[in-house]
């Protein structure tokens, strides 16, 4: 019974944060662009999210007659499921988590690689050339960056000797892994941005070139799921960065651990928005070049050096 409460609590918290992020991102982007952003609906425009939700629920949920209907319908669901499932392994505090899995990190990697299908299939099922181009770009980009994402975490795994996220946090009692694993952290951050395909790595949906990329044909709540899925992805990557590199719930004890976790997560969410506000989108071949020619050798070197040092210290 308690278990169900925890699952419901995690879902509630995560979905509220993701929905709230729509407002947060718009306000923060406005702040960094010397504007106000949504400030009309409710205090500070806080109810903008509600207004948007009401709007999106009442829109016509249109399936194009030329689309592959079954695939078109399940594509947004895959995204939501793969991201929401991953939240099961996140240890929010010492005792508040859904799953204490021995393969937690691998579970995350598996789910993020399944998340690619949502975009690829969504773009393909739309039967629209822009969507198809978007999904082709997405599949290449996400496959590429998944490689570095997995490899950049191996340093952390080696240092903490575990795939279990709770144990990884416990292993950071002495020192946050961001200091010994700085390269891993930077690569994970970049790969995380690419994995959630947000600006500056939003080439699958590059609105200047591809209308809206893979979700051009989507409307109503199906589009809403892609939309919220993006913010869920941002939240997920932020929580993972905090868990893996910034000591999770650890922090000075005058405040509860949950506060420290959410404080650090909020910091990284804001950093994601700042990245979006400041950086332009690279070209597609630049993105791939950067991945394979710079990040991959860097990560492999990081693993080599980390392994050598660990062996030397033993």
């Amino acid at each position, binding site marked *: 019974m308690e278990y169900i409460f925890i699952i419901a609590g995690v879902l509630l918290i995560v979905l509220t944060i993701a929905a709230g992020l729509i407002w947060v991102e718009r306000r923060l982007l406005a702040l960094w662009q010397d504007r106000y952003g949504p400030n009309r609906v409710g205090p500070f425009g806080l109810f903008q999210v509600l207004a948007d939700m009401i709007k999106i629920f009442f829109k016509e949920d249109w399936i194009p007659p030329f689309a592959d209907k079954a*695939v078109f319908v399940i594509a947004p669901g895959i995204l939501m499921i793969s991201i929401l499932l991953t939240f099961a392994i996140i240890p929010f505090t010492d005792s508040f988590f859904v799953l204490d899995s021995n*393969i937690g990190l*691998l579970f995350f*990697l*598996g789910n993020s*690689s399944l998340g*690619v299908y949502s975009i690829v299939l969504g773009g*393909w099922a739309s039967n629209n050339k822009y969507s198809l181009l978007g999904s082709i770009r997405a599949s290449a980009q996400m496959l590429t960056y998944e490689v570095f994402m997995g490899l950049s975490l191996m340093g952390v795994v080696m240092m903490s000797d575990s795939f279990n996220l709770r144990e990884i946090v416990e292993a950071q009692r002495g020192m946050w892994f961001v200091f010994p694993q700085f390269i891993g952290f930077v690569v994970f951050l970049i790969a995380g941005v690419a994995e959630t395909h947000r600006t500056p790595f939003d080439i699958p949906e590059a609105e200047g070139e591809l209308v809206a990329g893979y979700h051009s044909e989507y409307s109503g709540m199906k589009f809403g799921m892609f939309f919220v899925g993006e913010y869920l992805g941002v939240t997920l990557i932020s929580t993972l960065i905090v868990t893996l590199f910034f000591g999770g719930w650890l922090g000075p004890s005058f405040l509860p651990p949950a506060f420290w976790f959410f404080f650090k997560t909020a910091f990284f969410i804001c950093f994601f928005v700042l990245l979006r506000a400041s950086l332009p989108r690279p070209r597609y071949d630049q993105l791939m070049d950067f991945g394979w020619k710079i990040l991959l050798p860097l990560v492999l070197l990081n693993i080599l050096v980390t392994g050598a040092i660990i062996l030397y210290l033993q």
Partner: protein
Amino acid sequence: MNTIFYIAGAIALLSSILAITNRNAIHALLYLILSLLSISVIFYILGAPFIAALEVIVYAGAIMVLFIFVVMMLNIGLEEELENKWLKPRMWILPSIIAAILLANLIYALRVLEHQTVTPQIIQPKQIGISLFTTYLLAVELSAILLLAGIIGAYHIGKQKKKIIHRFLKK
């Protein structure tokens, strides 16, 4: 545990059959992914969580994406003439014989091992790593060389041809 095993097994069987019989290439690939996922569930139940995760990451997550990528690029429609032309009844003979031998093998193995029970024993990633780099070192090295060959081959094929510049555009 047994119920979950049977459910996963049934899904694996059913989706594999659908993957073969489905005419739409992408739908067939989706069924194949489903089959891989249910097999990974079976691995997990049998006490190999690491293999289960790798099955999802490598097979369902990476290789099948490449398959779909290629099928997407080929833009295969629902044309059936080509397939009918390629798949003559004669072509079924050899695969059927091989499959029949395999089936016989399986039935024999099941009969021999009838009274043995599988005791799930959780294998940690560390054990897998140790056995990979001690017992099966040769296999790992050989597959690494194979992958290296693949990379070099891909690089050779994908190498850009020398650009021919018009003589007026030369410096």
